[in-house]
Structure formats: structure tokens, C-alpha cells
């Protein structure tokens, strides 16, 4: 993975001369994700969010992460992540772990993280670092350079904590469909609401971004249960790719 570049103009994503092959809705979603990453968030500033994205990208080539990944226990390998860093060390470590070794995240690991990072900050960090990972995987699969990271936008985080978020059986508080009211009334669009769409609901804007990316890169959430919905690939072909990715990632969900 190439070193992060910043300051890119998200109006001009470079698809390596193959722009015409990429669906318009996919291009629009990827523009939207880069803009989302650059904007002030709920708990992190635009500058911090771009720094999180940058760490997510850097983690893919981090020597310490590679050594930990190869170790029987990631906690057994000490050291420093490849830098330079602008974020606190504990935040850098969380981003690198989520990017490079997600299958071995555990409840006890999370409890240790949350002792030093507010859970709202954590959920937003998960959103930013994973959305950037998705863009990087797209670029790698497509055979082009990673999209330049956007220039951060100024402004203060909203600090909006949704009243409906509560313990729901995950590590993080989530909003149940029946509690998605008021500012969160648009969050789920009714119908089937899988836990993956609720996972980031402590920070509702991350759910909106995840919905957008899922809708363009897979199928719209409300159409997931309909087996007749597909794209150029048949639905079984789509599910085969999805299952293969998840098997490689050793993800039970």
C-alpha cells in the first residue's frame, strides 16, 4: 500500500483512465465518503478524522502490525507503529488493530480501549477507519493508486449523543429501530434493520455514511433480503465474493 497522500480534490477521483467503467452511483458514493471523512464529525474534528483515515492507510504497511498479525497473540509483540503520528498513541493503536487484525478483537480488548477513549469517539473512529479501508480495498482490487486523502474541513464537532442509544447486546450502545426518532428518524428507513446498520448508531452520521457505501458497493440495505436484487454479477456471484472476503477476514458476522 502506498504512503498516504493528503490534500486531494475529491471532485477529481483518479480511476487510472478507467473512469468510464465505474458506475455513476459508485463514483458518487466514493466522492461522498471522502467528503464525509474530511468534514467535522460528532466527536472528532475534520483534521482528526483525516488523521484517523491516514493512520488506517498507514496501518496496511506497518511493520509492527505485520509482526503482530503473524504472532500467536497480538498482545505479545511490543513496539511502535510506523509513523509519524499526530494522534495519541492509544488511538493510533486502535486504528491499526481494526485495520490489520480485526478478527482478533475481543471484548476484553475493547474494555481496555474504552478505559482510555470515550465510546462515542471510539464508534466514530471505527466508522472513519473502516470506510477508508473500504476505499483502499476498492482501489487495490481495481488496480489503481489509493485515492488521495481529502483536505480536512474546518468546524467544530457536533457532540450530538442520540438519546435512544442504549446497551443492545453489542460492545457499544446502539439505537433500536423503535428508538430511532427525532433527529434519528431517518436512520433506518423501516423494514429489516440488520445489526450491522445499528452498530455505529451511537454516532448517527456514521450510519448514514455506512448506508451510503453499502448501497452503492453492495445493494441498498432495504433490498438485502430480496434475493432477486443484483447488479452485473448475479446475486449468488455477489454473495460468493462477500462470503470469500469475510472468510479471509475470519469474520463470523
Amino acid at each position: 500500500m502506498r504512503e498516504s497522500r493528503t490534500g486531494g480534490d475529491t471532485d477529481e477521483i483518479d480511476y487510472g483512465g478507467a473512469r468510464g467503467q465505474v458506475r455513476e452511483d459508485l463514483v458518487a458514493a466514493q466522492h461522498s465518503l471522502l467528503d464525509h471523512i474530511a468534514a467535522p464529525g460528532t466527536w472528532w474534528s475534520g483534521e482528526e478524522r483525516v488523521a484517523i483515515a491516514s493512520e488506517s492507510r498507514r496501518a496496511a504497511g506497518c511493520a509492527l502490525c505485520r509482526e503482530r498479525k503473524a504472532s500467536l497473540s497480538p498482545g505479545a509483540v511490543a513496539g511502535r507503529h510506523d509513523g509519524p503520528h499526530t494522534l495519541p498513541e492509544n488511538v493510533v493503536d486502535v486504528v491499526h488493530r481494526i485495520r490489520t487484525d480485526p478478527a482478533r478483537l475481543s471484548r476484553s480488548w475493547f474494555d481496555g480501549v474504552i478505559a482510555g477513549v470515550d465510546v462515542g469517539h471510539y464508534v466514530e473512529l471505527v466508522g472513519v477507519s473502516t470506510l477508508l479501508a473500504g476505499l483502499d480495498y476498492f482501489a487495490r482490487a481495481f488496480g489503481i493508486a489509493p485515492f488521495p486523502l481529502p483536505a480536512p474541513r474546518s468546524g467544530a464537532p457536533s457532540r450530538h449523543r442520540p438519546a435512544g442509544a442504549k446497551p443492545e447486546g453489542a460492545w457499544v450502545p446502539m439505537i433500536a429501530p423503535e428508538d430511532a426518532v427525532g433527529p434519528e428518524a431517518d436512520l433506518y428507513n423501516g423494514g429489516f434493520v440488520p445489526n450491522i446498520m445499528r452498530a455505529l448508531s451511537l454516532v448517527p452520521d456514521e450510519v448514514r455514511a455506512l448506508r451510503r457505501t453499502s448501497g452503492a458497493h453492495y445493494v441498498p440495505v432495504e433490498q438485502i433480503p430480496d434475493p432477486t436484487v443484483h447488479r452485473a454479477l448475479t446475486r449468488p456471484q455477489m454473495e460468493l465474493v462477500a462470503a470469500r472476503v469475510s472468510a479471509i477476514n475470519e469474520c463470523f458476522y
Partner: protein
Amino acid sequence: MGNDDAVLARERRALRTVVSSEGFVDACALIAAFNVVDRVADATGIPLDPMLYAGSGDVREELGLARFGSSANTPEPG
């Protein structure tokens, strides 16, 4: 996906031939989507949705998915 650029280039060409350029783009998009989904799921500790859990017992057993660490986030019902 691996780090061998030559292998990846060959596989991209093969995939385009088999499923068309549009299908290739879809495959790239799916790789992106599920690398997001898997990380969000594993980093937030969400359990498998009850409806999906109830309908996937045979597949989970056949594929041995309980060996994945994140299976601990989905407790056995009851």
C-alpha cells in the same frame, strides 16, 4: 488480496474476461463493502441477527465458523 502485483493483474484480466468489465467493477465494490462490514462488526461486537442465526445453523456448522473469534459475540440462544 496479497502483495503480488503480477498475480493480481493476471487475476483482474481473467475476471474481466469471465464476468465482463461491469461485473469486475461489482466484484471490486463488494470487496470494498465487506472489508468495511467485517471490520465494523468485529470492532463493535455485534451479534449475528437472530433471523440470520436461525437460518444458518447448517452452513455455520459445515464451514466451522465457530472457530472464528468473533463467534463469541453471538451467544447460543437460551
